[in-house]
């Protein structure tokens, strides 16, 4: 198993340690996961899959909770910001 995983967040390459969640990659690359309907930036609050604030699109699938999904090589992650 490699020590590092490279994926893309909003088209930008980002490298995280193996075993890190997508939320980590998003924090490094974009700073926040999504914007609320009133335009506020949102990110992981609970870190345990309850608050749904860390949702991103992963490989085309919307509303994935980035704090619950491990980063994988070549993942395409999109924030809506």
């Amino acid at each position, binding site marked *: 198993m490699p020590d590092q995983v490279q994926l893309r967040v909003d088209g930008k390459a980002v490298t995280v340690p193996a075993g890190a969640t997508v939320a980590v990659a998003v924090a490094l690359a974009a700073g926040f996961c999504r914007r609320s*309907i009133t335009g506020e930036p949102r990110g992981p609050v609970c870190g345990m899959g309850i608050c*749904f604030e860390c949702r991103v699109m992963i490989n085309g*699938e*919307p*509303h994935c909770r980035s704090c619950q999904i491990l980063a994988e090589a070549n993942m395409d992650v999109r924030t809506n910001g």
Partner: protein
Amino acid sequence: MSVRVYDAVVVGAGIVGAACADRLSREHLNVAIVDRGLVGGGATAAGMGHIVTMDDSEAQFALTRFSQQLWIELRPELPADVEYRQCGTLWVAADEPEMQEVIRKHRYYGERGVATSILTRMELAELEPKLRPDMAGALLVPEDAVIYPPCAARFVVARAEQHGAETFLGGTVERIDNGSVLLTNGTRFSAGIVVNAAGIAAPALTSTLDIKPRKGHLVITDRYPDFVRHQIVELGYLKSAHSVTADSVAFNVQPRATGQMLIGSSRQYGADHSQVDDIILSRMLRRAFEYIPGLARTSALRAWTGFRAATPDKLPLIGPWPEDRRLLLATGHEGLGITTSLGTAALLADHVVGRTPRIQPEPFLPARTFLEHVHA
């Protein structure tokens, strides 16, 4: 205690009562609207808000189509929060026998002046790519629309108030009797006419009314813009709506302006508790996944229930009640009250001012329930 005097008191501030109050106040009647809860807080808030022409019977077609035309006339005045969107209805045929029904329906609507189009399997797949690709086809009814009903009720009540109507919320009506309306808090109204538009609560005030609560479930999803673009209903929907005894589910999905989707539908008699029924809910969702497999991967935010006011002959009760000469009924709209509210109010107002109605009122007259008893 003092008595409040009005030309008309409307009991119930759901969409039907709201529309009646609006219409009567625009006929220059001095109107009061009374509701124990909120404006648009009962079945009005629980339902989908589908403005739809239906062909279960000639009478139902006439009332739903007439009402839909009134919504189209009203549309320029509706505020943005009513979210009126003419997304059209797709009646989906799962197989060839249902496709025959599509053809029949197309002809039926066409003969009555409503343009629809028949979609082949390929055309349907292009319009709604998330639907299972092996559907036989569909009927597109382009003038059907969706709205957000609680805001529509609020708008209609506000318009009634602009014409002088007064709204009394939070007081439960205890009794309606010959133009007198008594609330449990002691408030008393006296009116030339009283309109019982209390939905499933109507029989508690007009005791011989045969209206049963018919429970329904809905689910709302997170935002998935353009996941579906039309209100999509299985053609078997009427079979579900028809079933008089058994619990039934039918696939019915609606895109909201927010990108969310409402997923329905279920129908249950004899279920008097408002709790979500897990077995019915899962049956309802499985049915939806059969039509749109991708729905199974969407997030649901909330599930809830509501109660439709169902009559034995599946038509609403609109007009004078033979047992009380000052009482008019506007209830029993089952799952079509959002659509038919405006037509109901127009029929009622025409009756009150003695004008010739634009559609035949007879099929909806409450007196028919007495005739049924005679023939039974």
